[in-house]
């Protein structure tokens, strides 16, 4: 394998880890309560803007902007849960699309209203601190995002599988009534899920803002990628999202390099439909 091809694959893996990072919140909500959040991309976008505001307007720098974005978007998640999601869950599945799509428009254009249409960037994202390792060039900000992405995914996985909170949350997602009989408060667990998902999404936004320019419509394309990643991985599966994210990242990168960049979507969507044909529950979803 030529050096360039290694570079392409590594670029794809870094990209894929970022996909996994901003999809983990979506898959958590999806798995916990079978709700697809159509405003997910806009949560990411608001995470990016939070980072910009903290960093540039308030002079916070990177170490303040990432936790701040986590807190802001987690709060947004909890608010969305209590004011909207809790209620639309009583209706048909369509109500979720209706409600979260309305929320998406509200947030997206609220951001346009608040921040303007012009592209914004974090001040020293240019620095990037790229480094060369074994002949391969790494872009610092992407490596950071990928590493944190893996960390967040792993942390979410541990919380869900190894902690008491996690097993309570899973109990609610399996059967809310039964969980309630066991003394678990379903709404509290679901709100917690929205907070965790929001925090992960906020972190994702703040890190993506390191290397992507920020505009109110930034969430649009990211949302579609997240949908595909999550359903390819199997909904509710955090590790599935990671595997799917890495897979999509590498496939996109390789297709773009070997075949041509316009075909990467064609290949990814075809692959996605094919996988669902053989595994309707996604790569790592429960049958």
């Amino acid at each position, binding site marked *: 394998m030529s050096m360039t091809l290694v570079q392409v694959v590594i670029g794809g893996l870094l990209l894929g880890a970022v996909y996994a990072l901003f999809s983990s919140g979506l898959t958590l909500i999806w798995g916990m309560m079978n709700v697809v959040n159509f405003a997910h991309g806009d949560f990411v976008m608001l995470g990016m803007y939070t980072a910009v505001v903290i960093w540039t307007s308030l002079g916070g720098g990177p170490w303040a902007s990432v936790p701040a974005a986590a807190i802001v978007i987690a709060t947004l998640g909890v608010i969305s849960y209590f004011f909207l999601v809790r209620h639309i869950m009583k209706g048909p599945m369509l109500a979720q699309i209706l409600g979260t799509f309305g929320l998406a428009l509200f947030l*997206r254009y609220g951001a346009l209203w608040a921040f303007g249409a012009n592209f914004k960037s974090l001040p020293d994202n240019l620095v990037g601190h790229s480094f060369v390792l074994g002949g391969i060039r790494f872009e610092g900000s992407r490596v950071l995002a990928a590493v944190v992405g893996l960390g967040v995914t792993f942390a979410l996985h541990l919380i869900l599988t190894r902690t008491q909170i996690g097993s309570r949350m899973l109990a609610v997602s399996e*059967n809310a*009534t039964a969980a309630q009989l066991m003394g678990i408060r379903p709404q509290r667990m679901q709100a917690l899920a929205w907070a965790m998902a929001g925090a992960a999404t906020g972190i994702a936004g703040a890190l993506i803002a390191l290397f992507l320019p920020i505009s109110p419509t930034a969430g649009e394309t990211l949302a579609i990628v997240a949908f595909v990643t999550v359903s390819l991985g199997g909904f509710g599966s955090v590790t599935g999202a990671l595997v799917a994210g890495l897979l999509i990242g590498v496939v996109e990168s390789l297709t773009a390099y070997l075949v041509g960049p316009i075909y990467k979507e064609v290949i990814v969507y075809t692959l996605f439909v094919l996988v*669902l044909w053989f595994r309707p529950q996604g790569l790592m979803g429960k049958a």
Partner: protein
Amino acid sequence: MSARRIVPLALLVLALIYPVLTMESAVYQRMGALVLLAAIGASAWNIVGGYAGQVSVGHAVFFGIGAYSSVVAFVHLGLPPIAGAPLGMAISVGLAALIGVPTLRLSGHYFSMATIAVGELVRVLASTSDFLGGAQGLGGPPMPRTVLDLSFLSAMPYYYIFLVVLAGILGLTWWIERGRMGFYLRAIKDSERAARSLGVSAGRYKLYAYMLSGAFTSVAGSLYLCMFGFIDPESGFGILISVKMVVMAALGGAGQLFGPLVGALILVPLEELSNSYLGGQGAGITYVVYGAIIVIIARFLPSGLLSLFERKPVVAQPEAAKPANPASGHAD
């Protein structure tokens, strides 16, 4: 005559004379036509998305095929655009079979996500096709040659054409609703497993509904082309076109005959008026208001506006649609 009869009759008369009432205002007259056009698309979607409960978020595929068939009829064959409508319907039926067979096996959100992916796939392919004008898109007749080009200054002819088409689709939907197929579709929506155990060939009927729905959505696309005279991949196959059909039907009441029409009656004027009066400020207030109103309706009437008028309390929602139990209403 009771009010239950007078009200529908009055509404029908209003629908028939609306363009005459709005003679003075081209904008409001046109808005009437736009409401009907949106209602055609959303009503077509309703057949598979509402009645059969298969939430497609990729119906723009069929809308785009209708629009492109019409423009291709003009650009490549020199025919009036509307002549492409039957072609669009035929292609849509075929494509619906092709898409439906692999995707309709998927349950719940997986189906929705797969239809999004197929929609995006078609959009990308269309933008690379020279035959379809690539990313630049194709235009219909710049100037009407004959009346068959359906290119009018006034919105009145469009209004009545759309009204007839909508009536046709609603009539057919009504007929399906009352017949065997409607019964099967409701059974599938309530619980696919139960329907199968009763001997309903769920896969087959879902596919029928999908094909039928695709064909009529394609008509909406063809009519759109006649009215606007131009199509490109984004305005034909864009994901927003798909989502708007879903949102309209859900807002009015999916799986109900007049649900999509009610949704269109709310959303189209809302979008047009808010853009007219707020759009010029250039701050996106249009969609902030539009989004907020959708959120409020979804929050308080998750089953759509028509659920306001249901006499019986809403029957318990089918379990199948929601494997994860919603939180119970107990105080937490």
